């Protein structure tokens, strides 16, 4: 063969070899082709609504793929509208009008499970739904009480979902809570995540990502908790959200909730260093009240075995600052007065904290993870008597808990008295 012919063939072979590498990525997805779900709201639906469900992932015939036979849920999805979601502060000012320029598209579907609902939704949306950026799932209280199983599995299994998203329990319907859009933030779900992040940062709420819930849910000596939110405000357009407590869980079922102030007790028992809650105490042997805001705390927890039974011990140390005093004539300026107030606060804090523990004991929901401490520190006792979540729940109800509080007033603001 002619030498240049050989050369041509050689080059051709090289080209052939290169070609398969230049076709690009299998998993290429254009941004516009993606339906980025930012938030999900999950509600219960009345049973008769099941008849209206689309047969996307199941058939009516029993020998086909019958529906899983669970009660239906209604899923509200917020899909980001490409180009409308502000990417930085620079774009923020643009349109205040709201109405025509919504940054998200809210759409509702029904399904038997979360994935079922998302598949049903996919059938109605042109873009491929993408869960990698979603930040918030709100579940209505009613549904939480029935159990979260059908929601949790997908959230744990799907590789795209971040464990730092939030799972919130809403007192009223979740679809309503999801659309809360105050003027502070143009994307509703981002407002919700900001709200949670700020609360954690200010020391008003424990960190509670989905991942934290999963860890507690799986652990043997611990139960999960979730933030409990409640819509506030009357009219349909202007309502907003309040963090209203901690939802207590037993396995995947919500069994109760705490009062808002009990969040502070929870943080104290858990020993979260960042503190930001305020309390009011009457001045002992005086008139009026003083308000304190905590700014730092430290907690020691341990287990003591007495007569073969664990005793749970908690020692809390709080440092606070005087915020406000209701009676200008009453002086809070001497060591004695402050000491008396400290004592007063200590007693009251002990009471309130103990109340919270008693409440969780009554529900059998050990959100503090005392059980993990027993498992870790007293393995002999644990291995002989407990071993399982269920057994720990029973034992937890009856265990004696002892809480001690040490309170120190560190700062008094700019006023001397």
């Amino acid at each position, binding site marked *: 063969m002619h030498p240049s012919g050989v050369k041509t063939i050689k080059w051709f072979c090289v080209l052939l070899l290169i070609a398969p590498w230049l076709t690009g*990525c*299998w*998993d290429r997805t254009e941004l516009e082709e993606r339906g980025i779900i930012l938030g999900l709201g999950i509600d219960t639906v009345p049973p008769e609504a099941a008849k209206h469900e689309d047969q996307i992932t199941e058939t009516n015939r029993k020998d086909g793929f019958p529906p899983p036979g669970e009660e239906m849920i209604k899923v509200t999805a917020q899909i980001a509208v490409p180009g409308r979601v502000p990417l930085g502060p620079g774009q923020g000012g643009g349109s205040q009008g709201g109405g025509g320029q919504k940054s998200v598209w809210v759409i509702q579907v029904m399904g038997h499970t979360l994935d079922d609902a998302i598949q049903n939704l996919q059938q109605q949306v042109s873009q491929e739904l993408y869960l990698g950026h979603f930040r918030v799932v709100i579940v209505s209280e009613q549904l939480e009480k029935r159990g979260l199983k059908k929601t949790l599995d997908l959230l*744990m299994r799907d*590789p795209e979902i*971040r*464990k*730092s998203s939030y799972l919130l329990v809403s007192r009223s319907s979740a679809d309503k809570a999801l659309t809360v859009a105050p003027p502070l933030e143009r994307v509703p779900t981002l407002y919700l995540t900001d709200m949670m992040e700020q609360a954690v940062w200010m020391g008003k709420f424990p960190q509670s*990502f989905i*991942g934290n819930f*999963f*860890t507690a*849910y*799986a*652990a*043997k000596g611990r139960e999960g908790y979730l933030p409990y939110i409640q819509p506030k405000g009357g009219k349909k357009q202007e309502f907003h959200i309040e963090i209203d407590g901690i939802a207590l869980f037993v396995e995947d079922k919500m069994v109760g909730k705490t009062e808002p102030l009990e969040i502070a007790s929870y943080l104290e028992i858990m020993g979260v260093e960042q503190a930001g809650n305020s309390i009011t105490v009457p001045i002992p042997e005086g008139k009026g009240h003083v308000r304190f805001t905590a700014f730092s705390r430290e907690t020691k927890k341990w287990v003591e075995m007495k007569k073969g039974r664990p005793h749970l011990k908690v020692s809390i140390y709080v440092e606070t600052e005087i915020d406000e005093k209701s009676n200008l004539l009453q002086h809070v300026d001497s060591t004695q007065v402050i000491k008396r107030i400290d004592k007063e606060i200590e007693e009251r804090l002990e009471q309130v904290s103990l109340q919270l523990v008693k409440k969780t004991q009554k529900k059998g929901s050990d959100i503090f*993870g005392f059980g*993990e*401490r027993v*498992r*870790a*520190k007293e*393995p002999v006792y*644990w*291995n002989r008597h407990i*071993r399982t979540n269920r057994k720990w729940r029973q034992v937890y109800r009856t265990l004696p808990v002892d809480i001690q509080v040490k309170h120190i007033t560190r700062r008094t603001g700019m006023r001397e008295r």
Partner: protein
Amino acid sequence: MNRPRRITLLQATAVLISTVIGVGVLALPRFTAQSMDTGAPLLTLLGLGVGFLGLILLTLLGMRFPQQTILEYSEAILGKFLGRLGTLILVLFFALLTALIAREFGQVVVASVLRKTPLEVTVLVMLLLAAIPSRNGIDVFAYIHQFYLPFILAPALVIVALSLKNADPLFLQPILGNQPAGMFPGMLTVAALFQGSFVHTLIIPSMRRPQKAWVAALWGLGISGALYVVIAMATLSVFGPELTKQFFWPTLELAKATSLPGAVLERLDAPFLILWVMAVFTTLLSSYYVTAYGMSRLFNLQDHRLFSWFILPFVFVLAMLPGNIHVLYDSIQWVGRAGLVPTILYPLLLLLVAALRGKRGASGGQQTTGQSS
């Protein structure tokens, strides 16, 4: 045969570290937690001990026969037929190991990032990546490992350090575990993770000072083992034993749950996976190299390059055999445990027989007796 003695101590150590750290990093916390719940770090340490035993035997052999690899002096020790048989078993085992490493890599990629890319493509590309550099000599091989070493160690350490803020020390206690169900089998499974260190036998004859081979072995396994223990501890202390058991790749979940401070990156799994590909690559390269080199010894050929391409289809087919991820992990477990026979017991046998028969290789730059011209 005379090999150029150009590999430094640092390179030998780097080869060991980057070979040992590989695919296993992702699943290690799961199966250690499954066999010993909170005792997972301790179990990792025990497994390291078993793996170390194998490497020490290999190093002692290597220092006894500083001119040859195990594939050569085995014939001098056991005789031609038995030696060849041992080599054959080693080659088969390492071919299988290579296949499983490639497949596990593909399985992770398909499950977590490139979900539409066919598994075959990911595995084949990875095998090609290993096949091409395996055509080089042992010097280049060592250089490649040395080059990638920082990229392998750094990300794991960064993720461990950043995850500490979510860690709960209670999840690490009691250090013996509450219900240590399968301590012994678990130990063997962990030990199997260190099988890649077998490549040391190929390095010793090319080291500048083969008598220092034990230093490399000590540091190599020490550092990689410490990294494994630290990863097991970090994962366990963040997720707790019960949740760790439920994830296929807890370390990947750890990267996912870890964020850079200041919300620069809210999840680190993507950067972690990118760097993890390098770790897999170096591991795969080593076992591929051992397989190709072993083949050349088996057929008494000077050059292993021919086999770099020749074994590719076989390894690929082996990699495609497991039907799903559960079959895959079962086979990884069984192949790993069975592999302790050729990687630990076989060197032990060789060392005993060599000591009994008083066999010893020539040292220094002298020509050795026996085969291969």
